[in-house]
């Protein structure tokens, strides 16, 4: 496993890997998105309490889950990059960050649109929304720090520290806001129940995997861009570009 990881630490190998993974991610993602949308928008029956309004769940929950997953992914990549001094791990983190931020923004906006008909208000300071908002700022903070240093390596490593500290912070924020929100608002609001009927649940699972693969596809693209930018003086890049 480690030799494979180490091999991927080589820029041309990683580039090739990303290139080959791209179409798999892309087409599977599209297929699953189509299936999920049909399942969620058409096949799933209206909810007993929320009617057809609940269908926002098929966009909202996957984006929220991805927003958290991408940050965890960035934290792991940052740790790998710092501990094993792999430049490419930092490239992965940098490539993933804007995507994670986009998912976070999407989660916030769709959550807001869901909140209005369901709770009567566009915004609620509940644990999930608030900690998601904080996560959005952490993403922005990472992108600001990683790009603030003239030296790429310094920026990478400074960003990596921030990603790791943020990773510890996100659950702390969530818990503290949950505590605060339950103090002031009584019952916490559940955005998805685990006792959903199968006809409602499967499109959600499909959409979650679809979002993950879509992220994977875009990551292969952005990662290649990062690699080309960082390794622009390398001879393998010259050879590649000449083709």
């Amino acid at each position, binding site marked *: 496993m480690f030799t494979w990881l180490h091999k991927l630490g080589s820029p041309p190998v990683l580039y090739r890997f990303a290139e080959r993974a791209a179409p798999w991610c892309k087409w599977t993602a599209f297929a699953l998105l189509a299936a999920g949308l049909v399942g969620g*928008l*058409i*096949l799933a029956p*209206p909810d007993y309490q929320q*009617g*057809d*309004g609940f*269908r*926002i769940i098929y*966009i*909202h929950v996957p*984006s929220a889950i991805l927003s958290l997953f991408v940050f965890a992914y960035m934290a792991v990549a940052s740790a790998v990059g710092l501990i094993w001094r792999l430049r490419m791990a930092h490239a992965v983190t940098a490539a993933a960050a*804007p*995507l994670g931020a*986009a*998912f976070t*923004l*999407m989660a916030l*906006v*769709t959550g807001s*649109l*869901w909140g*209005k*008909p369901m709770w009567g208000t566009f915004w609620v300071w509940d644990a999930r929304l608030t900690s998601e908002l904080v996560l959005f700022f952490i993403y922005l903070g990472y992108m600001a720090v990683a790009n603030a240093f003239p030296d790429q390596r310094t920026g990478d490593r400074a960003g990596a520290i921030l990603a790791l500290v943020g990773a510890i912070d996100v659950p702390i924020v969530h818990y503290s806001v949950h505590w605060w929100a339950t103090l002031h608002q009584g019952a916490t609001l559940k955005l998805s129940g685990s006792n959903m009927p199968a006809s409602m649940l499967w499109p959600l699972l499909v959409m979650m995997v679809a979002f993950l693969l*879509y992220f994977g596809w*875009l990551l292969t*693209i*952005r990662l*290649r*861009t990062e690699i*080309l*930018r960082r390794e*622009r003086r390398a001879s393998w*890049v*010259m*050879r*590649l*570009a*000449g083709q």
Partner: protein
Amino acid sequence: MHSFHEFLTMGGFAAYVWPAYAVGLVVFVGSGWQSRRGLSKALARAARRAQEVEK
């Protein structure tokens, strides 16, 4: 779903459901387009640099 009309109106929640999906579409398409553009620009720049080196 019982009718196309029901599909469109989303049981009265159309004003919320469709914009939510629209946001999803915009983010997906936008990030996809922007990412691909970034890659093609990077490839073009690398090609130009490779040509300059050859000279």
